[in-house]
């Protein structure tokens, strides 16, 4: 379980910039083509999983990921409340900018969320999941 | 005050989520939790009373979120039944939380999960949109399985896992039915569906969605072949008693509420009243036969829940107005006395440190307050005169015709036999223990039982306050039913004395439990039988 495979780690080292690029492309083009925050975030989460597959020791600090995710969650809640419920004037450019920012925030949040779930399974497999 | 329905749903959920992030010293924890609970519950009670009086004066509140036109967006609708159930659930959650505050070991996580559950249940009662109901029930399933599995020992792990997987499967069937309905009609809103389905040309195409949705709803409200998950989930040994009270009192009623709504939508298309009358009767009989053969206090109470739900379903399918109101009032009554019984059972288990009904004796001498509350709830559930159970059973049997009257008498005799067995814990000579129960602990139980008493004496004003109908019982009929109560009590006592305590029914009952694969097979068989029945008989 804890020894790494040479073939996979070399190949993942080659692949992960491409996966990163595809994920960012799907997120950023969410307002014009299929995709958006959710799917791009799931693709980005595989980058974190790749890091574990390449280097299976327990040195990722989950605590900072969790703090980051909670900040993103509160931003995702605050932004529509501030912008939409105060009727800031909507023209074409600010519509697209709003969609872009929401897509990026949701993509980052989904990515951190899924990688936290994966790391919790992997690190605490021996019990003691509920701190 | 246009958005009050949204606030009623969102306020507990947000508070519960923020409470989960709370980290503070132990000595301060209890005070903070008490303050938050009292503040939250009184705000919710005030809000729901306001909505109730508003609906009584000005008719149903319909609120479209986002100000979309009707039938397009998500709607929240509050009519008389919905608001009455919301009020009932907020009352019961208050008592359950006060009971939980008096436990010896308090954790903030249980309270945050309970608050989130309260918001979700209020949302299920007021939402008018099928997909909204689906999302809320799925989240409630996850929260409840976390609560069941809270202490993580052997038995509760299995029960929590079974509960989660069975309910998710049932909700997948429900969503598939919604998908088929959406494909045919293009509407997901309940009022819009009712209008469209009354003029829908091709009725044969509606059988499969109706069968799928009703299988899921029947699993959530525990009718005959599909109730194996319920007793172990409600009465699992290490869950806090407040959880059992909430689950058995309120959450299983949300399944029946969905049954009401879906029957209302499809009432012009299919006529399935006879099927649910038979299903209700068989469920009630199976419920009390399994309850009488149990040795564990909480499992006995959980099986008697199944029996009462069978009676409620009979009342709702009798095609008469008085039986319908009787069934709905029995939902409210059963919530009150079943929660009271579960909370007293929790107190007794904590005092005697055992759950076996043969080892607990003599509660009446040692803890008189708890025993009085227990006795009043038992009188309520068996339908003694002057208590609320008798009023609702009177109205159900008022609308019954033919064989249904005798069926109700048989179910009553069975219920009395169960509670005769339960009340043996009150008498006799108990073990010598030194346990005193603090006054605060017995306070919520006492108040609940007093409300049961009031619900019977003041039944006319309460029914007209909650449901806006005027139902006054005929005095001669009522005295006749009281006489019938005493005769059935005699028959039940004879039955108990000479038949039940001699035969060992426990072995037979424990062989009839189904595992996970059995539950899924029974779901498939139920779906097929329902589709065949509707195709042949009810078109």
């Amino acid at each position: 379980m804890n020894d790494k495979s040479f073939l996979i780690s070399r190949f993942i080292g080659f692949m992960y910039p491409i996966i990163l690029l595809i994920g960012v492309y799907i997120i950023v083009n969410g307002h014009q083509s299929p995709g958006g925050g959710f799917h791009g975030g799931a693709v980005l989460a595989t980058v974190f999983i790749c890091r574990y597959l390449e280097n299976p020791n327990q040195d990722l600090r989950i605590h900072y990921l969790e703090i980051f995710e909670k900040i993103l969650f509160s931003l995702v809640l605050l932004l529509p409340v501030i912008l939409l419920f105060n009727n800031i004037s909507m023209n074409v450019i600010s519509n697209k900018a709003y969609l872009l920012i929401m897509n990026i925030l949701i993509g980052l949040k989904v990515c951190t969320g899924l990688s936290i779930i994966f790391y919790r399974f992997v690190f605490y497999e021996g019990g003691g999941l509920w701190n | 005050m246009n958005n009050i329905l949204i606030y009623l749903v969102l306020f507990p959920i947000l508070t519960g989520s923020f409470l989960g992030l709370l980290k503070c010293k132990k000595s301060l924890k209890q005070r903070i939790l008490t303050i938050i609970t009292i503040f939250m519950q009184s705000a919710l009670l005030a809000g729901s009373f306001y909505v109730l009086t508003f609906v009584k004066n000005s008719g149903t509140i319909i609120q479209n979120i986002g100000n979309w036109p009707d039938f397009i967006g998500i709607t929240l609708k509050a009519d008389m039944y919905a608001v009455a159930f919301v009020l009932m659930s907020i009352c019961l959650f208050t008592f359950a939380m006060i009971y939980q505050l008096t436990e010896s070991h308090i954790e903030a996580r249980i309270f945050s999960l309970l608050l989130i559950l309260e918001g979700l249940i209020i949302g299920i009662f007021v939402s008018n949109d099928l997909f909204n109901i689906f999302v809320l029930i799925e989240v409630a399933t996850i929260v409840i399985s976390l609560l069941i599995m809270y202490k993580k020992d052997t038995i509760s792990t299995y029960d929590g896992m079974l509960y989660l997987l069975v309910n998710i499967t049932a909700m997948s069937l429900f969503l598939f039915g919604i998908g088929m309905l959406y494909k045919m009609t293009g509407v997901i809103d309940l009022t819009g569906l009712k209008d469209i389905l009354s003029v829908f040309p091709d009725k044969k195409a509606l059988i499969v969605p109706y069968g799928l949705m009703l299988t899921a709803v029947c699993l959530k409200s525990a009718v005959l072949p599909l109730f194996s998950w319920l007793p172990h989930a409600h009465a699992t040994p290490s869950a806090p008693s407040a959880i059992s009270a909430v689950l058995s009192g309120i959450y299983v009623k949300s399944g029946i509420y969905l049954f009401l709504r879906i029957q209302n939508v499809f009432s012009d298309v299919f006529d399935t009243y006879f099927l649910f009358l038979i299903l209700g009767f068989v469920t009630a009989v199976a419920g009390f036969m399994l309850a009488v053969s149990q040795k564990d206090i909480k499992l006995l109470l959980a099986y008697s829940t199944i029996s009462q739900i069978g009676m409620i379903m009979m009342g709702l399918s009798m095609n008469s107005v008085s039986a319908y109101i009787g069934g709905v009032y029995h939902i409210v009554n059963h919530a009150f006395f079943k929660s009271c019984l579960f909370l007293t059972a929790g107190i007794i288990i904590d005092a005697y440190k055992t759950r076996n009904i043969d080892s607990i004796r003599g509660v009446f001498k040692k803890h008189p307050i708890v025993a009085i509350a227990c006795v009043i709830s038992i009188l309520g559930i068996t339908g003694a005169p002057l208590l609320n159970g008798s009023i609702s059973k009177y109205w159900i049997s008022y609308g019954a015709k033919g064989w249904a009257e005798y069926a109700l008498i048989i179910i009553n005799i069975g219920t009395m036999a169960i509670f005769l067995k339960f009340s043996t814990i009150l008498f006799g000579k108990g073990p010598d223990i030194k346990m005193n129960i603090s006054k605060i602990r017995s306070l919520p139980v006492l108040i609940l039982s007093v409300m049961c008493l009031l619900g019977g004496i003041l039944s006319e004003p309460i029914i007209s306050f909650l449901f806006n109908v005027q139902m006054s019982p005929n005095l001669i009929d009522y005295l006749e039913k009281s006489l019938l109560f005493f005769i059935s009590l005699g028959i039940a006592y004879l039955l108990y004395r000479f038949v039940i305590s001699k035969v060992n029914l426990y072995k037979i009952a424990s062989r009839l439990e189904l595992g996970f694969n059995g539950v899924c097979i029974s779901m498939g068989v139920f779906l097929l039988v329902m589709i065949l029945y509707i195709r042949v008989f009810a078109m």
Partner: protein
Amino acid sequence: MELITGENISILIFFVGFAGLMLKRNVIKSIICIGIMQVAIIIFFLSVGLSPENVPPIDATGLQNVADPLPQALMITDIVIGVGVTATALSLFIHMYHQFGTADWEKAFKLRKDSEE
């Protein structure tokens, strides 16, 4: 009429998943079957009224045949619910495995009955 449409495939996959729930005794296989049923429902919803010449409902102008956006929005919610449910079920399974030592429904049922008496 066409035999391989979205609806027919999704009904087939749904009942394959349901049959797997009835017949398989491993807990992980039951969780996988629930995932299969949810995927089938997603395909069913997305194929409501869809035909090959529909365009996506973003930036569409005028008289084009637009695909229905309502089921797509509902299904995003449903995918997220599916992820949450699978995560909860798997973490509960880890606890169950440590308690019982087996991943089989029948053996766990027997162990539960024995520890009850």
